[in-house]
């Protein structure tokens, strides 16, 4: 069975290899690229995207999609900023902010499960709603000057000569918790089972409805937490924050080797997917002469490569059924 186990990790290995290759390319071509701080900066600048991508991984593993994540980040940043502006203590503000995503997630998950609506359309409505609500709070940017938020934003945790931010620690905790949740709990197994074949999962007596609602709640929570981390990063609330972020998150998950039809994929892959998106941006910054839109084209090309690769390997392997039992 050992060769089969290896095959299971192929997409993950390819993603990781690609990341290493891109990094090597940068190190050879640009001075200062190979500094460990550049790697740590990938985490610092993309901590919120890692958190969102983790939540999105569960949604996509179950065969669904969540388009609302970017808007939930905007709404969280807006609520946080406006409550802080009203002189409310962060001890109250942060729990409220963290509740926004889960509440929206429960509502979306219930609509999807109870009325059999399409995740695409329901989360699209969630996206409109969250973005609209943040505009209703204010159409202007609200700056944050609260000392606690300044502290969270500016504290550097030193590792030798290099540093990371508190947000990176939050992201790492989220990733570890998510890996545990995906591979060592009943919930995780149910997610994979639903993504593999919802009908079979139902016939096996798995709690499909409950799991589905929980998945969207979890993704909502991740978005809210990411919104908070994003707020630390930007130190402001704005209705246009994280516009189009859902696309980056979906791209990271796909590049990370998760099948968009559900059932196959890894949380760790999505993290590497985010890092690859980060490396592309860093490469373009170091190159200096390339304009920012090359990022989009590069992401598009990568998406194409991975999707075609997935398609070809699934045609050859058709090993989808075997995977569920292995977890």
């Amino acid at each position, binding site marked *: 069975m050992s060769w089969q186990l290896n095959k299971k990790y192929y997409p993950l290995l390819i993603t990781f290899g690609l990341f290493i290759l891109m990094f090597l390319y940068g190190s050879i071509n640009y001075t200062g690229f190979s500094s460990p701080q550049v790697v740590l900066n990938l985490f610092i600048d993309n901590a919120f995207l890692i958190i969102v991508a983790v939540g999105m991984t569960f949604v996509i593993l179950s065969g669904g*999609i969540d388009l609302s994540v970017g808007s939930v980040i905007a709404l969280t940043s807006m609520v946080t900023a406006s409550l802080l502006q009203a002189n409310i203590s962060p001890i109250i503000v942060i729990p409220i902010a963290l509740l926004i995503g889960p509440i929206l997630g429960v509502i979306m998950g219930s609509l999807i499960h109870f009325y*059999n*609506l399409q995740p695409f359309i329901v989360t699209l409505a969630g996206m409109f709603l969250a973005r*609209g609500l943040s505009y209703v709070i204010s159409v202007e940017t609200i700056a944050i000057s609260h000392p606690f938020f300044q502290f969270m934003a500016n504290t550097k945790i030193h590792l030798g000569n290099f540093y990371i931010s508190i947000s990176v620690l939050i992201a790492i905790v989220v990733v570890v918790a998510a890996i545990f949740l995906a591979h060592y709990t009943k919930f995780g197994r149910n997610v994979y089972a639903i993504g593999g074949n919802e009908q079979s999962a139902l016939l096996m007596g798995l709690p499909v409805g409950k799991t589905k609602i929980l998945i969207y709640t979890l993704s909502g929570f991740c978005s809210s937490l990411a919104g908070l981390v994003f707020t630390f990063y930007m130190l402001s609330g704005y209705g246009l924050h994280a516009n189009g972020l859902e696309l980056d998150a979906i791209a990271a998950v*796909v590049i990370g080797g998760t099948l968009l039809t559900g059932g196959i994929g890894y949380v760790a892959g999505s993290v590497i997917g985010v890092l690859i998106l980060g490396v592309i941006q860093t490469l373009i910054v170091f190159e200096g002469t390339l304009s920012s839109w090359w990022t*989009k084209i590069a992401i598009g090309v990568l998406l194409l490569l991975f999707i075609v690769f997935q398609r070809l390997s699934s045609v050859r392997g058709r090993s989808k059924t075997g995977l569920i039992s292995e977890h």
Partner: protein
Amino acid sequence: MLKSRLFWPVIILLIILAINLFFDPGFFKIEVKNGHLTGSLVDIVNRGAPLMLISIGMTLVIATKGIDLGVGSVIAMSGSIAAMTVVQGMASDTSLTPLFMAIAAALGLSLAAGLWNGLLVSRIGIQPIVATLILMVAGRGIAQLITDGQITTIYYEPYSFIGGGYLFAIPFSVYLVAAVLGIALYMTKKTALGLFIQSVGANPEASRLAGINSKNIILLVYLFSGFCAGVGGLILSSNVSSADGNNAGLWFELDAILAVVIGGTSLMGGRFFLMGSVIGALIIQSLTTTIYSIGIPPETNLIVKAVVVIIVCLLQSPEFRQKVLRPRMKKPHKKEPENSLNEQGVKIS
């Protein structure tokens, strides 16, 4: 009448328009000024033209159980290349040649985009939502590449005719919508193509076994969707006499999908309603116009949209009807024979 899928969309459209009457008694008045028809209704149809066009293309894609997320980017690409062609062509030429070159370039690029999506879906067999996601991300980058990230302004009279001109007192864009809608309706109602599309959407494998070339049907609908988005992009960029690779057609794919769903076409494929989608697009446009005209802050536009989406989807969901609407509807009718058939997608009549 109640059975018609068009019933609810039309009612919703009429309600939205009627709300305006409360706030502006002259809302339905149409006047002729300088030989042009003017009025709020004309305005809604004129501004809604790109969305109507794209919804028509999207309807056929969705009917084959697909989805085209690339249309927003195709709008940006089409507008950008048309504008750049005009800007380059104008230096040497003041005749109509740059206009036709721009149209040819825009439509060529859009058809290429449609072909790309169609090949990925039909030949390589990638899930439509993923296949078209590639163009959604990369297309906007390509559009910015074409315009070099700038907003290009065009000073060329013939080009603004496409989106801002009038022919026999009616906005020219309305003719474009009518033409595309006419072609689509003719092809799907008067030829077997409509039946083929429905059948591919209901079950591609069974359709193939029945002798339908499923792959080419799928390729065709993505080509058509690309074409519609290309024309829409021309109208949009010509209307504002500029091209903006970053923001032109932003979120149009979502609005178009919304229009199609409001119009009664199920995302599961199968039966489709071109007129429904056109009415859906008009609903979205009149919602926007209404929000502006009755003085609700425009920020709430998105919230209203979200609520409308959910209500329309719930009304179409068989589960919702059964759980919430059925108990009250049970007495007058003893049974509703049609419902289960609709869900299947194909009802060959």
